[in-house]
């Protein structure tokens, strides 16, 4: 069962060193713009897959290969980080 971007907040904070749940993702396929927190997340596979909640196209894939996080963002047209509020 799919989770949402909140569930990978820790992983993303570890990778990007800033909160990404509030970052705005633009789907490269359908153009939908949404905070990462609200996107579909599949955690239980070999890696983590983030999909567009509107069209289910893959936005982001994170695989942890020998302790190193590899991030593919090619499914997004943009990923806009909001200025930290604190």
């Amino acid at each position: 069962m799919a989770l949402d971007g909140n569930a990978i907040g820790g992983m993303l904070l570890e990778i990007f060193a800033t909160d990404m749940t509030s970052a705005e993702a633009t789907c490269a396929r359908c153009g939908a713009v949404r905070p990462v927190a609200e996107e579909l997340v599949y955690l239980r596979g070999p890696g983590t897959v983030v999909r567009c909640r509107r069209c289910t196209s893959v936005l982001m894939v994170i695989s942890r290969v020998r302790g190193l996080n590899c991030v593919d963002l090619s499914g997004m047209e943009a990923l806009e980080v909001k200025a930290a509020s604190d």
Partner: protein
Amino acid sequence: MTSPVSRGFHRRRGPAGAEAGKLPPGQHATTDFPVLSAGPTPHVPLTEWTFSIRRGGQALRSWTWPEIQGLPAETVTVDIHCVTRWSKLGTVWRGVPVRTLLDQVGYDAPHVLAFSDGGYTTNLPIGDVSDGRAWLAFDYDGQPLAPEHGGPARLLVPHLYFWKSAKWVRGLELLDRDQPGFWENYGYNNYGDPWREQRYAGD
């Protein structure tokens, strides 16, 4: 920093009698059947479902659901090994050997790319699906394969890590040149032999 031990915490206990020799390196046995998905569960009516063997994007041959059901099927008991480190021993499946399907088209390609509803793909050397060790499986444990586990039909290639056993599989593309599938593209091993612990590219 080394992590402190959490007193009394241990991994979910595996089944009693899971002989060590049956587990590839780095795996532990589980009794449940975790659901692993990289996307939403598709629901294709059986009347619209087909399985195709393609080459260059053209179907060489397609089978409808009743046609697949009409082929001689095998019941097999196999151990499955997931790259997320669980193994499930003695699972019982029923399906048509992929060899039977390949034999009906006559093939000469060295590689295949399995493709599924929802866009998932995984690549395999032809030898690993044509030698009787791979099935198009539609029953699990005596029941029709549940959608969350890949039903109506999934590939079953138990001698490789389980991501090669594509859920919701709809066909095989014959390839002259190998082409990485979904996870193979993201750093996972191109072949995925659990006994040689080929988890990641380069293992």
